[in-house]
């Protein structure tokens, strides 16, 4: 399945739709261009895997390779801490969605204001709404979602992907930022 349409059937969006990531180099280019990118990672990172690797490990690799700070929401922070990863900050998903609407806000001194946000790890409808907030009220920020399913409120999103295609795409992104082994 490679359709750029909402994964949950009824979650149709407004006039603005995310551009579909057809080439992962786009994400690399966005990251290269961004001055202060940020990853916002939810609790599904604790349970979902890519190529048998927990997504939390993938997030750490991507963060490390791209020098991107992570906001870990809910109890996701615990796993980052347990893995000795120290570039993660704790906020609630709703809190960070609110904070990112403040054009001056930054996750840590000299690490913002943020101009690119990568999201992953939420129930589909929740991420859909978080991205809706950002598209409407954080026009200074571009958003990229790296989940398997198309999120129309992002600036860039994968179309709905089969698991294997998604695994491949994630690997390519990591390679693009110099993180793949």
């Amino acid at each position, binding site marked *: 399945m490679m359709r750029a349409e909402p994964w949950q059937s009824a979650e149709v969006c407004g*006039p603005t739709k995310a551009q579909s990531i057809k080439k992962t180099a786009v994400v690399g280019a966005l990251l290269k261009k961004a001055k202060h990118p940020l990853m916002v990672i939810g609790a599904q990172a604790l349970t979902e895997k890519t190529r048998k690797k927990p997504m939390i490990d993938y997030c750490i690799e991507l963060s490390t390779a791209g020098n991107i700070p992570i906001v870990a929401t809910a109890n996701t922070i*615990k796993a980052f801490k347990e893995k000795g990863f120290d570039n993660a900050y704790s906020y609630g998903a709703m*809190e960070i969605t*609110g904070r990112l609407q403040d054009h001056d806000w930054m996750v840590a001194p000299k690490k913002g204001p943020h101009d690119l946000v990568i999201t992953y790890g939420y*129930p589909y409808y929740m991420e859909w709404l978080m991205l809706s907030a950002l598209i*409407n009220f954080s026009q200074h920020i571009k958003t990229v979602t790296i989940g398997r399913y198309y999120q129309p409120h992002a600036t860039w999103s994968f179309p709905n992907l089969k698991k294997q295609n998604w695994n491949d795409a994630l690997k390519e992104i990591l390679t693009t930022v110099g993180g793949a082994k």
Partner: protein
Amino acid sequence: MKVEFALTEQKRARLKADKLDTGFGSFRNVEVTIGKVVDDDWDEPMGPTPMPDVTTLRSWDHKLLTRYRPAYMPACQLCCLCTFGKCDLTSGKRGACGLDIEGQSARIVLAAANIGCAAHLAHSRHMVDHMIHEFGPRFELTQGEGVEIEAPVARLVTGIRPRTLEDASAILDYCETQLTHTLSAVHTGQEGSWIDFESKAFHVGMIDQVGMEIADLAQISTLGFPQSDPEAPLVEAGIASMDPKKAMILAIGHNVVPATYIMDYASETGVTENIDIAGICCTAFDITRYDAKAKIVGPISWQLRFVRAGFADVIVVDEQCIRTDILDHAKKVNSPVIATCDKSAMGLPDRTDDDTDEIVKDLVSGKTPGVYLTDHAKIGEVVVKTAIKMHPKRKKKGSLPSKAKIQELAQACRQCSECIRACPNDQPVMDAVLAAQEGNLGPLADVYDECIGCARCESACPNDYELHSWMVKAAEGRWKQESFMVRSGRGAIKDTEIRTVGQPIVFGEIPGVIAHVGCANYPDGGRAIHDHAEEFAKRRFIVVFSGCAAMTVGTIKDEEGKSIYERRPGTFDAGSVLNVGSCVSNSHIAGAAIKIASIFAKRNLRGNYEEIADYIHNRVGAVGISWGAMSQKAASIAAGFWRLGVPVIVGPHGTKYRRMLLGRADKAEDWMVWDARTGKRVQVAAGPEHLFYAVENFEELMVLTAKLAIRPNDTAKGRAIKLSHYIDLHETYNGYFPEDVHSYIRRETDIPITLKDKIHAQMKENKWKEKPIPDPTLVRRLVYGGNGGGE
């Protein structure tokens, strides 16, 4: 001749005489009601805002909304409400009427709150009018012994203490006027400001609390419900508690009146032993409050499974939370449907004026699948007679397919994923169907455990599979054993209970009051709210339930088979878990907070909303939780708590309310209060940090609940206790010592003794300085002796 004359605030003057001789003649039992007049024999002075109109409390709302700024997450960036539209409001564009996306988002919030309030208020109006018809306008209202402040919300808002049904009706007149005004503001070309839409949502939320309180007060007073009874009976619940040998009457909805006539008719005709009457949703609780032998099937989400399993010989629907397609499902299992409320006539013929036996005959023969009846006495007779006749006749009980049939049908699955894409919770329905192809129904049973019973998967399936029925069949072994005990609704909190706990709550030594309200309609919702309640009760919080959450929590049993209600007392005290009753009973939770201000702090309630809300916001560590909130009623209930300054947490799909009320702990200027003693402006810690928040998962709920119980007025001991809980839960679920503890330390004495070293280190690192502990208020006029001259 006996003559009574009564005058009441904002009510009518009434002259009642056994016999009256006039120039026109002599009359007996004369009752004359004249206009609206002022005053009564209540000596509490009237506060500044009796019967506030839509903008009377606006400045209070704006204070809250400035601190807790709405964060909108629009579900739709279009407006389709007028013929200028559709209008694209994306990213700052304005519609043809001039409204932008913030205004439109706030308008949706107000629309939802209006709808929710209307549902409760219409219920309340029906209840009061019906009871006046039955018992007369002078019937006295009561909450039972130990309750002198019997309607704290109504007193606070309207300045009236309702003592009779007629008083209740006058209060509803006021509420209905306010609802009309707030509803009108949603119209195109009216309000345009997000903050004033929000203020109106707060207003209608407040009105909703009054309407709910009046509804419950009326039914408690007239129907013999438990009256503020901590030992309200434990009642049977769950499918296994039904007796298949008896005719089964299922009542669905929120308005108990029709069901009381059914129970009365059964009792009067001596057939009580031949029928089981059970309820789904709030009517379930209220029938057990009327008669503890009635049974509870379960919450709203169990409608479909119960109906399809074929238990009901008759289905009676009243109002709210009814599946709107219930008639279609009932037809498949030969269960006649009796619609009893004008809100949900279900397209059925109105047979109110027909002969009872003719109606029964048509229902039993299947000539009509259901009827709409408005005469309560007739409803009682028709339902009981029909159930008794249908019971032996209904050979096909249930529309569940056999396991072999499921396996056979599953072979044709197209693997299109539409069932998953339709599921609000992304359950692996298709994988379960594929497993069923091999005869393995285990995964379908597992989906059943997480299913909220919406059946959207079925609507989406191109093969028209009745997937919900498949799940129910697969899990048959589980639900057939489903039996648990819940405590029937106790009603209000006694004044005497408030006297015991008022001080420790305000000082923070009882760390908080947790109110689980509304639905727990979320995967594993019963487990989540049970574990949450148990954990916080162990920590000496007071845990209060109402509505469907109150029955869902009972589904979880310990090793001895006991539900939380069997393990914990029903008093309003530390470590207790109590059930106030149905949805309208949750007004008693707000009432308890209000009574703390009155009884413990001796503040006047009467028409004094702002002062009492300010008191509660700064002092009473109450937190509302609605884990599976889904309705507009939940929105208006939450709005009522927001205006009182009480934070509300919703579960993950509460994000779909599309607006949070978020504080900014990092902005010191947002957390300034007046010190009522000195008149100085004082910065306090961010407590409660947020006013409306959707958590991502159970773990976040646990940490946030403890944090949101913090209040500026906590004593040192209370603050230390609250911080201990926050730190402990944060370490448990987030895995480390929270980094913001220092911001909650005002003086050394606030530090939990066992955590001194860690906290001292954090204080040092953050260059902590001692802070004053004010007598906090957001309202300048409440500074003692004047207007805050010490600024």
